[in-house]
């Protein structure tokens, strides 16, 4: 220095001043380092450790580094921590002094050391970024992201590293996941609401559609919701009750308030049952109209359902069946009266039957008394008196009258027995066999009259009848055909039988006396006799008719006076 010429004094003073200023600055720096307010950079140089300060950085920048919420550090080319901020030390749960000057790889878990070395290598080339866990003092691993690039200080290259705690981000991720889940849920809810809205609109459309249709029909119509609350009534209803829609209290427009008291309990019970079960509703009930009169209505309602089978609404109608119902009631009444008449007639018939029985029974005692008295008289009278005129013919006529009386009573008894046989069990009877037997019985009559009897019953199936009665029917018809023969011609009798429908028809045709139309009417009456030259009780055809009809059959006659008579009997099988 002695060789250099001395600078002028002013220059010296300025240089001196500058040096003094530098000295002051160095003092401040040393103070700041001592108090920890400013970080120092300790760099291990070849000639021992060197202290670097943050030369050139302003106070604001340093404050930012110190106070930011990320970890920041500078690494030397051998991976030593030259500097770290308080945040990084906090993240690693260490003191600043424990971090600074240490190899950062000490905080990297062994499994990530290669990865860390790779990141460093790339960082020294330019920049690098990565994620890895670091080990805190307690040993816990905390996820971090690191980003690094090269910085130059006084021509010494360092690697600046920003360390960000990822655990918070992980939480955020978790929260985001939750949020996303919530959102998805909300979306689903929205979707559901949209569907419900669509369904509701569809329901409303259906209801509107129903209302439009129902407005036009001739019946009273209504709809209610699944709970039974009314949603619509058509004009017919309001016409019927004489109230305008919306007029008066709503309860006054309801059908249940207008039910006839006698019909209300059953009708409402059935309606509630339908609402509960979804079963179609149908009822006949009386409903009061505008004039206060009750008219019979046929009420019907069907549930209308959606695709899932749930009831959307009920659609119902009331049809006025008042006249119909009254007509039915009149018919019912008529039928009841007919039944009554029938019962009365049956009773009268039974009474008559009983009368015939009782009369025949009660007349027996006095007539046998008369007969007994007549006998007693005969034994008391002297024989010559009895033989004398007119005692003898008087006694004879008396006996004759008694006999006729007795015979009539016998016939009446037979008739009354026949009445009692009503409902006698029937059996399949072989008509041909019966006819054969009767023919044998009548053989003497056939012989004496020289009659010709033709029988054709082969085609007839068995007849459902009581055999005894069938014999009686055949006997009566055949013997009548012979008894009432026409004088002067050979009696010709045809007996034919053939199936007809479900039954059998028996025909007995003769060429006998025949009857006029007036007599034909009375033919089957009791005690009707048309020919006094022939012995007859007047009871035979009555009995035949009775027997046939008791078994559900019919008898008819066609006769021509002087030509002949044909009896037709239809036996039901």
């Amino acid at each position, binding site marked *: 220095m002695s060789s250099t010429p001395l600078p002028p004094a002013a220059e010296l003073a300025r240089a001196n001043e500058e040096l003094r200023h530098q000295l002051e600055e160095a003092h401040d720096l040393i103070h700041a380092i001592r108090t920890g307010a400013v970080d120092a950079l300790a760099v291990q140089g070849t000639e021992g450790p060197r202290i670097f300060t943050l030369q050139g950085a302003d106070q604001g920048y340093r404050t930012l580094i110190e106070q930011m919420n990320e970890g920041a550090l500078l690494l030397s080319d051998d991976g030593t921590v030259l500097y770290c901020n308080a945040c990084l030390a906090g993240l690693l749960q260490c003191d600043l002094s424990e971090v600074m000057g240490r190899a950062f790889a000490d905080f990297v878990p062994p499994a990530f050391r290669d990865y860390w070395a790779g990141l460093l290598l790339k960082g020294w080339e330019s920049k690098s970024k990565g994620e890895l866990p670091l080990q805190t003092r307690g040993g816990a691993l905390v996820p971090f992201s690191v980003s690094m690039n090269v910085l130059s200080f006084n021509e010494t290259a360092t690697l600046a590293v920003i360390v960000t705690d990822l655990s918070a981000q992980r939480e955020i991720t978790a929260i985001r996941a939750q949020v996303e889940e919530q959102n998805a849920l909300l979306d689903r809810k929205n979707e559901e609401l949209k569907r419900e809205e669509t369904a509701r609109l569809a329901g409303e459309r259906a209801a509107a559609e129903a209302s439009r249709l129902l407005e036009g029909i001739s019946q009273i119509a209504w709809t209610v919701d699944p709970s039974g609350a009314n949603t619509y009534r058509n004009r017919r209803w309001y016409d019927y009750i004489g109230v305008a829609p919306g007029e008066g209290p709503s309860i006054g427009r309801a059908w249940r308030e207008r039910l006839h008291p006698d019909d209300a309990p059953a009708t409402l019970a059935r309606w509630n049952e339908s609402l509960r079960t979804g079963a179609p509703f149908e009822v006949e009930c009386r409903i009061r109209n505008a004039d206060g009169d009750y008219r019979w209505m046929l009420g019907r309602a069907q549930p209308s359902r959606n695709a899932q089978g749930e009831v959307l609404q009920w659609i119902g109608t009331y049809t006025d069946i008042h006249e119909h119902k009254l007509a039915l009631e009149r018919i019912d009444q008529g039928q009841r009266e007919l039944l009554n008449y029938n019962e009365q007639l049956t009773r009268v018939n039974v009474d008559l039957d009983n009368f015939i*029985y009782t009369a025949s*029974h009660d007349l*027996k*005692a*006095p007539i*046998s*008394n008369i007969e*007994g*008295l007549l006998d*007693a008289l005969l034994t008391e009278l002297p024989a010559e008196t009895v033989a004398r005129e007119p005692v003898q013919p008087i006694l004879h006529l008396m006996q004759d009258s008694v006999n006729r009386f007795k015979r009539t009573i016998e016939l009446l008894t037979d008739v009354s027995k026949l009445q009692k046989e009503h409902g006698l069990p029937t059996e399949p009877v072989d008509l041909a066999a019966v006819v054969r037997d009767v023919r044998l019985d009548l053989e003497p009559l056939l012989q004496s009259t020289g009659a010709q009897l033709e029988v054709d019953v082969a085609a007839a199936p068995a007849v459902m009848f009581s055999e005894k009665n069938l014999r009686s029917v055949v006997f009566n018809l055949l013997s009548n055909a012979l008894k009432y023969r026409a004088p002067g011609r050979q009696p010709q009798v045809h007996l034919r039988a053939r199936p007809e429908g479900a039954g059998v028809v028996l025909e007995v045709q003769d060429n006998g006396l025949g009857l006029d139309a007036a007599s034909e009417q009375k033919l089957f009456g009791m005690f009707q006799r048309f020919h006094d030259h022939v012995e007859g009780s007047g009871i035979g055809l009555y009995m035949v008719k009775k027997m046939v009809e008791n078994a559900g059959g019919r008898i008819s006659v066609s006769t021509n006076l002087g030509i002949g008579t044909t009896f037709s009997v239809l036996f039901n099988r």
Partner: protein
Amino acid sequence: MPLQKLTCVLLVDDDQTTNYLNQLLINRLEITDKLLIALNGQEALDLVQAHCHEATPDCPALILLDVKMPVMDGFQFLEAYDKLPLPEKAAIIIVMLTTSLHPQDVDRVRRLNIGGFLNKPLTKEKLNDVLKNHFNRHLPE
């Protein structure tokens, strides 16, 4: 051989003419010397109770009983008679006299524990049958 007469015969009938004729017949045939007449079941029952607790000549050996009678009819009489504690019931023969019977009455009569039933009117032949069947005797030829 003359008939051995019955000790007593009781006619039960509400018809006076029937009773008269039957009485005439029985007297003529000399079946008994003692003929009692009751006009209904109750009178007959009174007679039986009065005369049959001990064997008296007035206790009837044969009762001819009508069915239809007022006050107490033939069936009611038989019911009441069944309950009487009589010592010699077996010695009393009851024959019912009927007109033509209602079928259900015929059944009823058949089930009764009596000597038999006859259709009215009563005749000599019918009486002779009763004597033969129940008393082992008959009218003279």
